[in-house]
């Protein structure tokens, strides 16, 4: 299982240091995301699903602090621990190999820049070489046609771009970039970026991409803004995409569109997706495997078909039963999620479980593979019983 996974989370512990005490948000989480799969991460509010997904990008915001653990990412055959990389390296990894779609598209976009500006940022950061190549090729093409003064200007531009490619720190180049009017030579590279953005927006079924590119986020509808965010995260064809409740704030019809889009893209560029959600309907429709989180622990990991057909952990069972069915009374899970400041010593689901045994109170259950590819952390299922 280890070799085929793109990202492997190993024994992750993360605490929040608040005034009320130390909140043990993640308490030894381990799972792997395989190449080319859609992995669903399911849990209620406060179960640690967003924190887990952010840790994969090594984003840990105070008062949160990482206690221990390791997240191995596999880039081009080499394995790196993303939590121990320095900031400069992280900046090269984020967005290029791992990228993220956030829950609220309007909050994820900067309101004072146009959509095109924000997407082009990704290109300038991660794919500048490619952009420069395109620009130089285009300039050469133009140079053939041009004559007279125009030809001289093109030639000067070309030399500048070549300098930018070969020696980006050259003094004359930096001088040119500072001088107004003369620094307008850079507009060409922006035009190139624009072409690429129009391409990617078109592939996301955005009508009239050339117009959308110059719009500000507030001019877009929720679904359209989410598409722009998806465009941004897919700009570098990442090997791993984290989608943190990407459709929660959208309407059902738009949600269906976005889900279809994500599934199509996944088939096209073979990226692995970590799909964080609390909607079990969406999970059933999109995911290949599911990780169920409860109060900072992994409760169950299984194939989506096994999980819905034969859930093993009592929490998963209760969660599936709480889906409203017409003609039935609404089934709720009794009790509330335990406080993570002072979590129970044994199983964290103890208070709400119907099948408790004596050892559930004192011994924390470990995640065990009870069937092929079906892991569960529950004392009920140990020893093949």
């Amino acid at each position, binding site marked *: 299982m280890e070799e085929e996974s793109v990202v492997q989370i190993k024994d992750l512990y993360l605490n929040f240091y608040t005034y009320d005490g130390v909140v043990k948000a993640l308490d030894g989480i381990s799972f792997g995301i395989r190449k080319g799969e859609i992995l669903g991460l399911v849990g*209620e509010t406060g179960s640690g699903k967003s924190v887990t997904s952010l840790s994969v990008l090594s984003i840990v915001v105070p008062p949160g602090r990482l206690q221990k653990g390791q997240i191995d990412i596999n880039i081009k055959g080499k394995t790196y621990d993303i939590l121990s990389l320095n900031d400069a390296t992280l900046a090269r990894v984020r967005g290029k190999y791992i990228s993220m779609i956030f829950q609220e598209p309007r909050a994820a976009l900067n309101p004072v820049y146009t959509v095109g500006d924000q997407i082009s940022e990704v290109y300038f950061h991660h794919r500048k070489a490619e952009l420069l190549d395109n620009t130089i090729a285009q300039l050469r093409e133009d140079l053939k046609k041009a004559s007279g003064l125009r030809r001289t200007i093109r030639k000067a531009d070309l030399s500048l771009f070549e300098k930018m490619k070969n020696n980006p720190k050259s003094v004359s180049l930096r001088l040119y970039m500072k001088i107004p009017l003369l620094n307008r030579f850079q507009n060409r590279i922006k035009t190139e970026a624009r072409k690429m953005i129009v391409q990617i927006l078109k592939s996301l079924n955005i009508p009239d991409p050339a117009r959308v590119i110059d719009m500000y986020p507030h001019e877009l509808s929720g679904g359209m803004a989410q598409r722009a965010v998806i465009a941004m995260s897919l700009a570098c064809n990442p090997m791993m995409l984290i989608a943190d409740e990407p459709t929660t704030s959208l309407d*059902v019809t738009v949600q*269906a*569109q976005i889900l279809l889009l994500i599934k199509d893209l996944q088939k096209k560029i073979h990226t692995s997706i970590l799909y964080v959600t609390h909607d079990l*309907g969406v999970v059933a429709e999109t995911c290949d495997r599911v990780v169920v989180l409860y109060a900072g622990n992994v409760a169950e990991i299984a194939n*989506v078909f096994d999980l*819905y057909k034969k859930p093993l952990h009592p929490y998963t069972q209760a969660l599936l039963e709480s*889906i409203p069915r*017409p003609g039935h009374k609404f089934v*709720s899970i009794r009790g509330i999620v335990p406080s993570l400041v002072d979590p129970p010593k044994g199983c964290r689901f103890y208070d709400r479980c119907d099948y408790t045994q004596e050892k559930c109170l004192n011994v924390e259950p470990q995640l065990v593979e009870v069937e092929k590819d079906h892991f569960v952390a529950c004392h009920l299922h140990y020893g093949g019983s």
Partner: protein
Amino acid sequence: MENLMTVEHLKKYFPVLGGVLRKKVADVRAVDDVSFQIYAGECFGVVGESGCGKTTLGKTLIRLLSPNAGHIFYKIPQEVADAIRALEKDNPKSRSLKYLLREYDHAYISGSRLRKLRRHLQIVYQDPTTSLDPRMLVKDIVSEPVVSQGLIRGSGVIERVLETLQMVGMGEKHLYRYPHEFSGGQRQRIAVARAIITKPEFIILDEPTSSVDVSVRAQLLNMFQDLQRDLGLTYMFISHDLSVVECISDRVAVMYLGKIVEQAKTEEIYKNPMHPYAQALFNSIPIPDPTRRRERAPLSGEPPSPVNPPSGCRFHPRCSLATNTCEHEEPPLVDVGNEHYVACYALSK
């Protein structure tokens, strides 16, 4: 079933101001010519995408907003309603009509008469974090409606508050706390307690479960059903969560851009949606069963702006069945049998 509320040709437009003088340049047609009935003791579900006017409709019904046109007959004799309709047809400017509207039509009542009616019509909002005042104690929040209505005075108030809190599964120990000390589910319970303390007949539930978790959602929904049975309430349940509406409502209306496009009994409409929009809407509910995964073609495009809605049938630019007639004429809501109403030319022919 007994008729509690009859709504006829209700319209609510919001002005769009523009220019230097802030003159009205256009209207947002949030609710545009909507008619339906609500029976006593039922739960009437309203579904639709965001921006289709569900919340505006709810707020207009209990007169948090005043409608631009139309009638809301709330518990008035049939003869009066008939008289108003007849007068409006024959003599729309007569003084007797004005008198009748002021006296009986809930859309035009104002002043102390409206104030008295308010205790019978209540609302529970979507997000309890914003609908509860963070600086008020729970006892003050819950008692505010009875105190301001002057229903009870003195020491009786706290008794009533306690009684009401117990109905929603809370107790004495919660009285002297602030909203921020509670979880989302408990806050929503406080909001419900505030709504039922005046012993209303009709409550609008405006997406009451969209801000809570799955497990808490079930608890709240059970509470709504219990309260409805115990207190004989009538609900209007506004939601975009179609699976919840399916379980809690007796009848469902589907709204699109300020209009009701289809209305029927719940089983009927979920099993057999007829309007192309309703079909697309019900078809895009994710089914929590991976073996029933479908390759479906979702509805393309997004709802147009309600400022300048399309002519004729408002759904025609996105509709696969659209004909020439749909572009020019607005389809009326017609009964296709079994209390199933659809507004679509393609079906009524």
